């Protein structure tokens, strides 16, 4: 870094002096007394002279705190290293927070200084991660981000005025430091985004849910990291630990912020491997906080009886834009409108098989988007004729052509993924849950091969036999399937294919009845 002569030594001495002042004069809450004396020393040492010197000073101090941990590892036990690290890091972070608070009057220099420090810590973290390899220590970086987050989120009107910039700065930094980028920091990373204050600020206190999209991005970063290990069911202990921690965070969000999971459900479904049935059920089980779910086991429960069935779920993504390439989207739209050309149907499978994701031959996000798009369009068309979706209004349409074609033309893997995409729509009472429940039952009733009925049963049943939670729409649909004699469910060979399966059906049927 070709630091000016003597700057490193000077910075280290200043840091040590500040740590002492912070420890003796300050308190976990307020170090203004210590700061009011120390700021003059900083100034007279030329540290505040200009941006460049401050940046160097920050970097040298951060590096000091990092080195202290690695040096400590040679000497003593982790608990002593921890408490020394806490002392130095908490003091440094407090100094940074006070400099942010007192630098200039307008928000901009404050935000710039904060982002500068976050960037320095992130840069050193990435560098250390590459240098130290499996000796990398997450502790000092974790502590730095966490304590700075606490300090900048105290009830202080100066920080309140830049609260959105603070949350954006931290979200961007954590997105840059996502687990794929720095896997050695993954546990600390999840500790930070799963921290109670971080959740509070991002999901509860930020006005008008302004930070929800950023928090969604961070959860997606986590899912993307886990995807290959979970898809391979490689639940070695390190992955199982991260997965279990993820479930705990998701449970808190499901309990406290179900609307967040409802709104971003489509994003999450693309990022959860098909074999992670419980985690997917957890996301699909979320329902809007102000909604009262009717008991799915209510006798003769009909969607039409529920007021919520009239409303579509909130969809924050532009589903149409997710259907690529544009030429495919154009052909799709023209088929939906004109129910032609028929070649569109015969080429459908190849369009869905284009994927660069190793380990699967199908483009799962595209299948999910196609199902959601065609279904949404179909509901609109039916509504535009002042009708409601039912077994006859959904039949013999270009939309149902596509679903029936996919049910018949795809191979077993493709059909499994397509039926999963349909089942992913079975959530809380809404026009989508109602419509897709009808589509699944329609396909079951009108399929010309038992394979389709078997795979529909498989897709629904595997979501029911796992530990709770189970999405409301899934239960209602399965109950209809096994109760309504129209579907002749119990006459199918696959229902009796093995004693365990038969027992399973009977127990599910009993709990449903």
């Amino acid at each position, binding site marked *: 870094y070709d630091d000016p002569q003597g700057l490193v030594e000077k910075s280290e001495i200043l840091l040590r002096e500040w740590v002492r002042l912070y420890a003796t004069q300050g308190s976990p809450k*307020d170090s203004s007394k210590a700061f009011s004396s120390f700021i003059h020393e900083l100034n007279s040492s030329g540290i505040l002279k200009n941006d460049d010197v401050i940046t160097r000073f920050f970097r040298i101090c951060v590096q000091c705190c990092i080195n202290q941990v690695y040096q400590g590892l040679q000497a003593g036990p982790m608990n002593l290293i921890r408490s020394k690290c806490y002392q130095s890091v908490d003091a440094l972070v407090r100094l940074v927070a006070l400099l942010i608070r007192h630098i200039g009057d307008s928000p901009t220099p404050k935000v710039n200084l904060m982002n500068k420090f976050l960037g320095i810590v992130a840069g050193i973290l990435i560098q250390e991660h590459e240098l130290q390899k499996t000796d990398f220590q997450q502790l000092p970086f974790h502590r730095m981000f966490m304590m700075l987050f606490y300090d900048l989120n105290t009830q202080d009107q100066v920080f309140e005025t830049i609260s959105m910039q603070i949350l954006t700065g931290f979200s961007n930094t954590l997105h840059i430091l996502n687990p794929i980028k720095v896997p050695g920091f993954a546990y600390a990373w999840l500790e930070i985004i799963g921290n109670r204050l971080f959740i509070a600020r991002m999901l509860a206190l930020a006005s008008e849910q302004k930070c929800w999209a950023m928090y969604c991005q961070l959860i997606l970063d986590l899912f993307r990291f886990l995807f290959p290990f979970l898809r391979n069911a490689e639940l070695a202990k390190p992955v199982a630990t991260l997965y279990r921690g993820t479930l705990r965070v998701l449970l808190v969000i499901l309990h406290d912020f179900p609307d967040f999971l409802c709104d971003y459900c489509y994003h999450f479904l693309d990022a959860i491997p098909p074999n992670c049935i419980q985690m997917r059920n957890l996301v699909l089980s979320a329902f809007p906080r102000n909604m009262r779910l009717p008991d799915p086991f209510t006798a003769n429960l009909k969607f039409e009886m529920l007021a919520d069935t009239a409303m579509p779920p909130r969809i924050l993504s532009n589903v149409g834009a997710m259907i690529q390439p544009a030429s495919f989207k154009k052909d799709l739209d023209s088929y939906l409108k004109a129910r032609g050309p028929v070649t569109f149907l015969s080429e459908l499978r190849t369009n869905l098989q284009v994927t660069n994701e190793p380990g699967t031959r199908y483009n799962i996000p595209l299948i999910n988007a196609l199902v959601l798009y065609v279904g949404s369009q179909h509901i609109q068309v039916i509504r535009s004729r002042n009708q409601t979706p039912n077994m006859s209004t959904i039949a013999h349409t270009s939309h149902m052509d596509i679903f029936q074609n996919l049910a018949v033309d795809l191979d077993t893997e493709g059909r499994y993924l397509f039926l999963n995409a349909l089942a992913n729509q079975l959530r809380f009472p809404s026009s989508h849950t109602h419509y897709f429940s009808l589509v699944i039952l329609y396909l079951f009733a009108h399929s010309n091969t038992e394979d389709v009925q078997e795979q529909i049963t498989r897709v629904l049943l595997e979501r029911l036999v796992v530990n709770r939670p189970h999405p409301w729409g899934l239960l209602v649909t399965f109950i209809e399937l096994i109760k309504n004699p129209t579907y002749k469910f119990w006459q199918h060979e696959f229902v009796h294919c093995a004693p365990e399966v038969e027992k399973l059906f009977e127990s599910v049927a009993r709990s449903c009845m």
Partner: protein
Amino acid sequence: MVGDQFGMVGLLTFIRVAETDPNLVTLALGFDLTALGLNLNATDSLYPSFGGPWGEGPVRAEDIEYQVPQEYNISDQLRHGQEFVSSIREKLSPLKIPRYKDELLFYLFYTYAGDVLQVLSAAELYNRDWRYHKEEKIWITRAPGINAVEKGTNFERGTYYFFDPISWRKVAKEFYLEYDKLEDRPVVPPSYIHN
């Protein structure tokens, strides 16, 4: 029936494996989520006391930041005009140093550097026949029942107990002890004598 893993046979296999190798199907079958340390039936929100992804339960009450009135802060001092007016710290019950166990005295000595507590705890340790070695920077006391193997006018050699702040326990050690390296009785500031 469908012959590969995408039909009922696939599900049946998965059910059978669930009995023999649960780890392989943990992801699908999942956990009993009510056993992850969260009270999912709570009517209040969970996040304010969430203990983090690997916490065993909610955080302790003392870890949760509450905005308390400034007057309640025992560490901060109120600023009225220019002078600092201390807050409720005088109303706190005085410390009863002589009643604390050795280990707590060592804790106060090592964690309250540059604070009067460090001196108060040192003075009490001195009363209990511990002596602070100014060069080794460590507390030392005689091992009960073991006499010095060698004694001179200003030194002795024998086995002594050292308090090791790293492993946080008493460690017996052979040692050549020079009396002038031991600190005399620590001087407690008069205002704290009543403690």
